[in-house]
């Protein structure tokens, strides 16, 4: 009986091939889309997880339970550092948590933002000259003097041009006089008599007229850099090296380094190159690129200021050769060189990096430099050595993975203010000497000026005629040497773990145990006497984690919509196709077929069709996923690099998705025609055969 049923079903499918083809295509497309969509969603979810977990977050993050704010690793702290409390001593917290079976590693952290000053070239050269004079490094003085004098000459020329178009006032008159003095032979002839006085003059009267200095705001993670590099899989050194164990230091994230620390002119060249090569934009037609070229032409000073007289002569000779020009004025030569067109861009780009780049400071700070960093409120300053640059593999172009630099935890504590260093005795002594108490904001006016307040509006006579010696009993000498000795001495692991961290990243041996691990981590810390809040990577990453959740939610919704629409279309197609067969069903019933036989026949036809088309759809979806997994879907925008967890999205075929899609389509294919088939089978054969409704 089943064999007959199957043969009839197959015959019917063949006989009504147009209907079979249409319904089959729908079933094929539905299965294909479900398999492909599920695979892509998984890939994006994995990509984002990888971007977040393996760059900064780890699987779990902990902060003190006293924290007033939530931890958000990617939050901008431009307007204030969140109140997160501290984990201190970090080593004890770490030991307690690393004792758990689920935990692989605990990495100390703290996010902070500081600024460094990228001084104008004149300020830099004056600083170097001051240092050379102070340290009696007389061999350095002549070259630096010549360089400073050349910048002053350039300033004089700029001021002359400005005077020609701007009305004079007292300030410009004073500025012209100052620059004229700095350009006079008499000034430089007298320089050696009192170099510090001459430098004060240049510092205060001339340097403010030059190009403004730039502030670089750097967001960074203070951490155990060795442990960080080992634990975060995406971390990779690009240039230079990691600070040796026990050494303080700073590593630039190469994304931000190339975007902000690089010389302005070089950055502009790079930007135009990228726009032309990656986005197919042209200087001739793209307004943004045109403006970039115009700005470059007007910015010759950012090159000439950096060249000492010898370097300037070399650049002039090279540019004359390259441009085939007889011009000897470097400003005019640079103006011509920077007049970029689509035709000359490639050769000028090459020449820039061959002629100019080696003679200027291509990056404001380079590995090996010592950089002075200031806390956001400028109250604390530290010198920190730059050891190198790093990237998070595959995320070089993703801004979200490019903003955090790295710093050793010891320096972090100093600049964050975790280690103020003032002794309790000092503070107590100063409090006693201040003789004033802090008054609560709400009560201040009553306390200070109310009826019972001391203030009487008069000014009492002071009896300070005898004066005072501010340095009596105070020794403030040797501060720089102390700081340098402290930096040079480095630190031990005990120093590192004996102090505070703001938060910590926890890596689990099995990421799937995250939900069970979180309460265990909190309990283990509590048992060791530390109140901590543990959150998963998604919460800790703040807005980025929310974005990940939203993206995932969005993808799930899209897949559900596609699935529902596919199922609806398939169901409708099957219902319509069954309804169309009322006459045929009537005929079958008239020649003796039972109702049950008719219903089973229709369901079998649908199931067979779903089996074949669904299998084909799942197979094609799987093949496409495998192919995409091999070739990858290239990321074309900043955000895509982060979402994909690299330069391309490489979906992986998950067998479960095939089974899910196949079963879903099969169930729908069987259920959808069932009701119309039952209804059709109940119609009297005479009516059905007559075609009446």
């Amino acid at each position: 009986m089943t064999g007959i049923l199957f043969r009839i079903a197959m015959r019917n499918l063949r006989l009504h091939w147009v209907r079979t083809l249409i319904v089959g295509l729908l079933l094929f497309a539905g299965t294909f889309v479900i398999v492909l969509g599920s695979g892509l969603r998984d890939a994006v979810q994995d990509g984002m997880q990888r971007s977040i977990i393996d760059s900064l977050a780890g699987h779990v993050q902990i902060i003190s339970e006293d924290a007033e704010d939530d931890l958000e690793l990617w939050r901008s702290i431009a307007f204030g550092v969140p109140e997160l409390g501290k984990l201190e001593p970090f080593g004890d917290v770490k030991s307690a948590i690393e004792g758990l079976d689920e935990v692989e590693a605990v990495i100390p952290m703290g996010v902070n933002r500081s600024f460094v000053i990228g001084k104008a070239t004149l300020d830099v050269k004056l600083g170097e000259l001051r240092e050379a004079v102070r340290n009696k490094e007389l061999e350095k003085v002549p070259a630096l003097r010549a360089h400073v004098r050349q910048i002053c000459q350039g300033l004089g020329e700029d001021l002359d041009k400005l005077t020609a178009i701007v009305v004079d006032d007292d300030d410009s008159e004073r500025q012209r006089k100052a620059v004229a003095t700095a350009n006079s032979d008499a000034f430089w002839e007298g320089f050696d008599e009192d170099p510090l006085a001459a430098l004060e003059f240049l510092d205060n009267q001339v340097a403010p007229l030059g190009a403004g200095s730039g502030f670089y705001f750097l967001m960074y993670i203070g951490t155990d850099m060795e442990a960080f590099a080992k634990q975060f899989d995406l971390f990779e050194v690009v240039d230079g090296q990691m600070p040796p164990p026990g050494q303080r230091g700073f590593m630039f994230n190469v994304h931000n380094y190339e975007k902000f620390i690089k010389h302005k002119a070089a950055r502009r060249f790079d930007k135009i190159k990228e726009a032309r090569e990656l986005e197919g934009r042209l200087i001739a037609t793209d307004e943004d690129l045109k403006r970039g070229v115009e700005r470059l032409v007007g910015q010759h000073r950012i090159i000439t200021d950096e060249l000492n007289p010898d370097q300037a002569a070399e650049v002039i000779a090279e540019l004359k050769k390259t441009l085939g020009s007889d011009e000897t004025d470097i400003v005019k030569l640079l103006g011509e060189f920077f007049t970029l067109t689509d035709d000359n861009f490639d050769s000028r780009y090459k020449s820039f990096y061959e002629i100019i780049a080696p003679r200027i400071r291509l990056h404001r700070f380079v590995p090996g430099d010592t950089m002075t960093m200031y806390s956001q409120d400028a109250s604390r300053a530290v010198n920190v050595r730059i050891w190198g640059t790093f990237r998070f593999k595959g995320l070089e172009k993703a801004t979200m993975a490019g903003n955090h630099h790295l710093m050793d935890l010891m320096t972090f504590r100093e600049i964050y203010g975790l280690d103020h260093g003032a002794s309790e005795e000092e503070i107590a002594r100063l409090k006693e000497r201040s003789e004033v108490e802090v008054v609560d904001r709400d009560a201040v006016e009553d306390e200070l000026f109310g009826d019972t307040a001391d203030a009487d509006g008069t000014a009492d006579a002071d009896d300070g005629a005898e004066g005072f010696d501010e340095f009596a009993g105070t020794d403030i000498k040797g501060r720089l040497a102390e700081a340098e000795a402290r930096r040079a001495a480095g630190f031990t692991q005990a120093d590192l773990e004996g102090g505070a961290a703001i938060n910590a990243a926890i890596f689990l041996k099995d990421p799937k145990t995250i939900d069970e691990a979180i309460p265990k981590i909190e309990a283990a810390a509590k048992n060791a006497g530390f109140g901590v809040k543990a959150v998963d990577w998604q919460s800790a990453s703040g807005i980025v984690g929310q974005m990940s959740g939203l993206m995932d939610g969005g993808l799930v919704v899209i897949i559900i919509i596609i699935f529902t629409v596919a199922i609806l279309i398939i169901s409708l197609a099957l219902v319509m196709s069954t309804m169309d067969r009322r006459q045929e069903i009537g005929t079958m019933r008239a020649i003796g077929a039972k109702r049950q036989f008719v219903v089973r026949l229709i369901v079998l036809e649908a199931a067979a069709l779903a089996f074949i088309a669904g299998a084909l759809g799942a197979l094609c979806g799987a093949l496409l996923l495998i192919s995409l997994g091999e070739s990858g879907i290239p990321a074309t925008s900043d955000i895509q690099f982060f979402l994909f967890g690299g330069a391309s999205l490489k979906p992986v075929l998950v067998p479960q998705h095939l089974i899910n899609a196949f079963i879903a389509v099969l169930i729908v294919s069987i259920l959808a025609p069932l009701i119309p088939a039952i209804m059709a089978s109940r119609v009297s054969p005479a009516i059905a055969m007559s075609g009446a409704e």
Partner: protein
Amino acid sequence: MRHLKKLIPLLLMALFALPQTALALDEAEMVKMLETIDDRRRNSGDWKSLAILRQKEKGKEEVLYEMVIYRRDADDKFMALFLAPKTDAGKGYLRLDKNLWFYAPSTGKWERRTERERIAGTDSRRSDFDQTKLAEEFTPSYVGEGKLGKFKTHKLKLAAKEGVDVAFPVVELEIDQASGNILKTQEFALSGRLMRTSYYPKWKKLFSESKGKDVWYPKEMRFYDELEKGNSTVISLKKVDLRSLDKNIFTKAWLETKSR
């Protein structure tokens, strides 16, 4: 009757406006008042004072600093040098012409700073420790009479003149009517946002031989951060010395050698 009804509000308005109009200061009077304040605080010779700063930040332990301030008002020169705690000793600010420099002894570097710089991260600014130039740098307008505790005050609103670099572009002063001393200031950003409220409850005066009369100074200053609520700074000037300072004291070289 209808006309009378219309007149009543006008009469009432006039009645309330009367005392205000009667007491309002005209611009010349306000400038005079500011000039008096500036003149009292200025010394024609040198100035040295010892200050203790107490900085309270929300959620953090209190931080205290001891700082010595040097001024040569005639040349607009200003210098501040931190003496304690040891971790901050040697830090300094130096103002020459329109340049404000900051020196960090732990780095050995000088950097330019603006007038908005918070001194050592506290709620104080360089101008809080220097002579004032209110009449020269601001244009006043009269807000009205006020009362601050037991003091009757004049309230003046000052707007910074164009091209003048000041810490806050708009300042509201409450000046004691009896003594002419500033008791309270509120400082605003250009957007109108209140940035800081300051109180000057105690004033002192010291005879200056170079000036030939008294120099006035606030013995105690209290600053409340209006952006970061909960942050405040109290400054007490412990000692003032008006004797002449060394001629070459206002230089980078002098300041950095103190901590080198």
